[in-house]
């Protein structure tokens, strides 16, 4: 009985400690200090840029135990914006994202490994167009600290390269346009 009590108190203590240490951050999408952008080559002649306007997510990060960091991001696929309504309509349609059938894309991290110099590799499962695939992102820890308005913020950027056919998006845009680069920049506000 005494053992069980002490076990429970240790558990409660460790849970309390981990919740203090592994701070949770909410992506600052209200203030739009979070971006999910993509670029893909057009015919091999130039870059086409676009972004997703609506998403939410959160991450945990503890400087003492960075390997325990985790991220979840949900993206509203219909919010794709390439600054051209006709093209966006096409991108939302069946040839590409098919947003009526797949209104959400989701990233859930599985591991985080710091490699020094504020760099890290983030692995996780990306669900896009109904296909879930393990991907790897190169992450840079940009900075953190108290903001001027009483909060605490931490920000990362990340890049990765996706092959469209891996996600069953097979509309032929030409040989130079089979892969799309993602650039993600997020600022999280520490949850109180």
């Amino acid at each position: 009985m005494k053992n069980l009590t002490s076990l429970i108190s240790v558990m409660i203590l460790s849970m309390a400690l981990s919740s203090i240490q592994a701070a949770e951050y909410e992506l600052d999408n209200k203030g739009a200090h979070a971006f999910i952008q993509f670029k893909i080559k057009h015919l091999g002649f130039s870059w086409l840029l676009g972004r997703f306007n609506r998403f939410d997510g959160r991450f945990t990060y503890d400087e003492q135990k960075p390997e325990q960091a985790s991220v979840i991001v949900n993206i509203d696929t219909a919010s794709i914006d390439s600054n051209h309504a006709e093209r966006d309509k096409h991108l939302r349609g069946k040839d590409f994202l098919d947003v009526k059938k797949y209104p959400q894309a989701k990233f859930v991290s599985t591991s985080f490994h710091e490699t020094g110099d504020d760099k890290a590799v983030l692995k996780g499962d990306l669900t896009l167009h109904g296909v879930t695939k393990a991907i790897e992102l190169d992450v840079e820890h940009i900075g953190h600290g108290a903001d001027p308005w009483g909060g605490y913020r931490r920000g990362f950027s990340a890049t990765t390269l996706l092959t469209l056919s891996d996600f069953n998006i097979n509309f032929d845009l030409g040989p130079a346009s089979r892969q799309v680069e993602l650039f993600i920049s997020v600022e999280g506000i520490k949850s109180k």
Partner: protein
Amino acid sequence: MDRIQGGLMTWRNSRTHWGWLAILNHWLSVILISVMIALGLWMVDLTYYHSWYHKAPELHKSLGLLLFALTLFRLFWRLKDPRPIASGSHTNLEQLIARYVHLLFYILLLAIMISGYLISTADGRSIEVFSWFEVPALFAGFEKQEDIAGDIHYWLTMGLIILVFLHSAAAVKHHIVDKDKTLKGILWK
């Protein structure tokens, strides 16, 4: 009264026959609408490297805006020039249905063309008509305008196709079954 009972066709409608301006409006619309439907259904499935990938939508938009102008003129002319009187062999119900089908044609056509315009102008871009003139976006877009307008554009067109069959079937019925001059009334004399 410049309404003529028979003889040579005039540019205005007679009691039994449509005038040549109305006939021209009607058949020009038939041709343009057919081309627009075929072009519209074809162009959305073109591959990216097809030489018509950009040309087809440009043509569709240009012809669409000209058809819009033609339809407005048609509507004006329809209201201005009294229509021929329906053949006496038509029942009251037939006449009533015909009137509503005609009214619905105008409503559908205008709604289809306006929704088409709303797809292409959703981001404030104007529509170029054959490098001839531009029709600007008239108001700031609403959320997902191009998608909502696109669905309306497609489904109303499907409705229009059904209405075309109904309208044509009625014309053929009057010609073959009733053996009256309804169909001949919209043909060149």
